């Protein structure tokens, strides 16, 4: 039983990281109809920014590392919207191509600058430690990821429900022209959405490194996660933050349960990933708009 609790917490923590990535993707698609394939590299850059602060500015502590990761993700995402996406609104194929190109270019730059080998982030002792619950030793990193996921979910819900900017974003998802016709600079709202999504992605990149990847960062880590984030967004329903949260938990739990109980024998190592794809297929067949997506 205690093992079950441990892997459940691990699955929830993985789901929290997926949610951090998927929430940005879902917001960006929900408001702007942009399928952002550069989102993975926002994660990677967040992790590298965290590594840089941990390595060169250790006096800022782990809080500084977290802030740097989120800020890097936000800055790169905002710049991407302003410089590359804004001239291409209404041209979805061009948007897809330019975001794929940006991803490839930035990953190449990271490999050129830092090498393709992983770099190690210095983490505080408490983060590398465990907490005993019911006789099971739970990594503190799992609690950190869970807490971050819940905090971002709460902050996003507050932002979208309680702030005027959040209302503008929700309204823009319904009718962009009418938002403009009320005197609102929709372009600025788009930049804010990209920045918010990028901040969550940067944070996710850092958490993925310190919680699930042995405190290592590498140039392709974001792209490896992006596919699961897209699966979460589709299962949750495009544009639905709550749908993304539910789907992220579902995907995270299924992945760790199947991986753990199926074992790692020959041909079984990837069963966790395969099971997630099967869930996606079932959702697409039974409910194509996802769990909480709007009807087309």
């Amino acid at each position, binding site marked *: 039983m205690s093992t079950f609790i441990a892997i459940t917490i691990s699955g929830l923590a993985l789901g929290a990281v997926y949610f951090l990535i998927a929430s940005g993707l879902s917001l960006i698609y929900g408001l702007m109809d942009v399928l952002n394939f550069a989102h993975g590299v926002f994660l990677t850059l967040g992790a590298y920014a965290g590594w840089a602060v941990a390595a060169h500015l250790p006096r800022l502590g782990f809080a500084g590392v977290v802030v740097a990761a989120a800020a890097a993700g936000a800055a790169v995402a905002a710049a991407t919207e302003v410089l590359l996406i804004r001239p291409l609104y209404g041209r979805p194929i061009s948007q897809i191509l330019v975001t794929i190109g940006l991803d490839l270019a930035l990953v190449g730059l990271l490999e050129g600058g830092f090498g393709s080998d992983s770099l190690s982030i210095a983490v505080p002792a408490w983060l590398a430690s465990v907490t005993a619950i019911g006789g099971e030793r739970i990594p503190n990193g799992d609690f950190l990821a869970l807490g971050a996921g819940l905090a971002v979910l709460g902050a996003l819900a507050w932002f979208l429900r309680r702030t005027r900017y959040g*209302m503008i974003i929700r309204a823009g998802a319904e009718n962009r022209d009418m938002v403009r016709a009320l005197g609102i600079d929709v372009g600025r709202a788009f930049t804010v959405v990209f920045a918010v999504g990028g901040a969550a992605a940067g944070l996710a990149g850092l958490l993925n490194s310190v919680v699930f990847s042995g405190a290592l960062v590498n140039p392709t880590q974001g792209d490896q996660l992006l596919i699961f984030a897209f699966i979460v967004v589709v299962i949750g329903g495009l544009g639905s933050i709550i749908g993304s949260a539910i789907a992220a938990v579902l995907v995270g739990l299924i992945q760790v349960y199947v991986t753990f109980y199926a074992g790692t024998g020959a041909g079984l190592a990837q069963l966790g990933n395969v099971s997630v794809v099967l869930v996606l297929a079932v959702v697409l067949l039974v409910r194509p708009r996802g769990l909480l997506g709007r009807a087309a």
Partner: protein
Amino acid sequence: MSAGPPAVEVAGLRVAIGGSQVLAGVDLQVPVGGVTALLGRNGVGKTTTLRSLIGLLPSAGDISVLGHRVSGWATHRIIRLGVGYVPEDRDVFAGLSVRENLRIAETGPDLDYDRVYDLFPELRQRSRQLAGTLSGGQQQMVAIGRVLLARRPLLLVDEPTKGLSPKFVSEVVDVLERVRETATILMVEQNVHVVRRLAQHVIVLDRGAVAYVGEAGDLDDEKLARRLLGVSA
């Protein structure tokens, strides 16, 4: 009549949508003050004209709004000159509450919720209700309330009585009658009785161009009204 520039001045306005020329050189002036009705049969380009004035449709030609030449401006910049736009189909944000629909419209000077709630008391009672669950008439109150929240000297109102019950038509007309005391209104309207009650000036479009400019009283001429609009006055 004000000695200043017209509230709206358009010269050679041309708009093509999907390869079809909807406006083929519209020239018009809307004087400051009162209500000017933009009339014409279905499909002659009335809504297209309004949307072009605020940059929601790409167009060619010269457009001046409240003394500013706005051709090529982004929509939000034109609106912030002091323009309010009430679209043909209300376009309230269905997933937002009445209060949130109003809050989004906080983009002008002298925000005054009491002014809106005074004109539409029902909106205060329904402030927490999702706009998508309102009746057509109530949604029209939200759409008009949004543009009255701030002080705006020019309102572009597209078919404000379309699809409304007689009770709501009367209520909307009463409100516009009060609003015209403080703002210039350019109104698209198919209901000739509403036009005769509210408007002082009429501009009639036909085949993408202005076919007639005159006073609202001109519509009393049965033959003229039938020729221009295809309806009896």
